[in-house]
């Protein structure tokens, strides 16, 4: 990366009041490290402890989704190629009293379609419907393909105070970046 691109990136990231952003390889260790930093920064930024709890909870579920789901992105493969690389970007920002968490990661076309369908269904559900969905999902056997993610998505929808939004954008090399946003 040269300074011109670095400058562009800085303008994007430093323009608004950001609480935190992370991009790169995502693992359980990184979830823990970034999560601890996020909590510290939220505690000094935000008075509402319930808002902090909801943001932290959404962050954990989104990071775990990045770890579980995902396809190779434009990044080179890991040295330890036994493990599927999980690359992603997560950004927690603050605007007019609202906090939002955005997460992006590379997924297959099928995963993108499945995730968009699930999230749009959650976004149009009432609190009571989400509560019932969560309850039903708990009692369902964990599907091999879902790897537990759908319970996590319902959790995110319940903790968010605005409907979830999402989008998948394919870059010129055919990689699909799936993006989701939850606001509290």
């Amino acid at each position: 990366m040269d300074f011109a691109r670095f400058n562009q990136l800085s303008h994007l990231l430093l323009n608004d009041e950001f609480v935190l952003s992370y991009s790169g390889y995502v693992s359980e260790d990184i979830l823990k490290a970034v999560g601890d930093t996020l909590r510290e920064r939220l505690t000094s930024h935000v008075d509402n402890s319930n808002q902090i709890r909801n943001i932290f909870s959404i962050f954990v579920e989104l990071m775990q989704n990045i770890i579980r789901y995902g396809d190779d992105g434009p990044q080179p493969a890991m040295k330890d190629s036994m493990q599927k690389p999980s690359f992603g970007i997560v950004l927690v920002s603050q605007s007019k009293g609202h906090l939002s968490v955005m997460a992006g990661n590379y997924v297959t076309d099928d995963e993108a379609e499945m995730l968009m369908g699930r999230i749009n269904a959650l976004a149009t559900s009432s609190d009571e419907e989400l509560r019932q969905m969560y309850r039903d999902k708990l009692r369902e056997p964990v599907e091999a393909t879902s790897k537990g993610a759908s319970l996590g998505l319902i959790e995110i929808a319940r903790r968010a105070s605005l409907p979830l939004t999402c989008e998948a954008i394919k870059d010129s090399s055919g990689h699909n970046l799936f993006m989701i946003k939850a606001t509290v």
Partner: protein
Amino acid sequence: MSSFSQKATARTPEILLDADAGTLVLSGESYPEDVTAFYNTLSDAIIAFFDSSESAFDVSIKLTYFNSSSARSLMELLDLLDNAAGQGRQVSVQWYCDAEDDITREFAQDISSDVTNVTVTICDLEMPDAS
């Protein structure tokens, strides 16, 4: 007697099972890296207690945060307790929730209404400062 204890980590709660007193306290945060391993350890300890003692069992759940994978394991924990109660064991559960955390309270209510032999009492959790 088969008491069991395991210290809390940043991502797993403390387990305190006192076989003499017939009590289990689960306190802290739960978003383990390996959720199955953690909750298997817990259920093994409970089963060992059931095998070694006939006494009543009083469970306190004091979790300030748990993720959705832990939620599933907590439901299974409650099922385990419910089965024991169904076989004649006296079991009570106190579930402590932060007064402001509606989602957790609703979760505790919902999984409690799915069990038939155990009565779950939902109580207010005193939150530690700045955690």
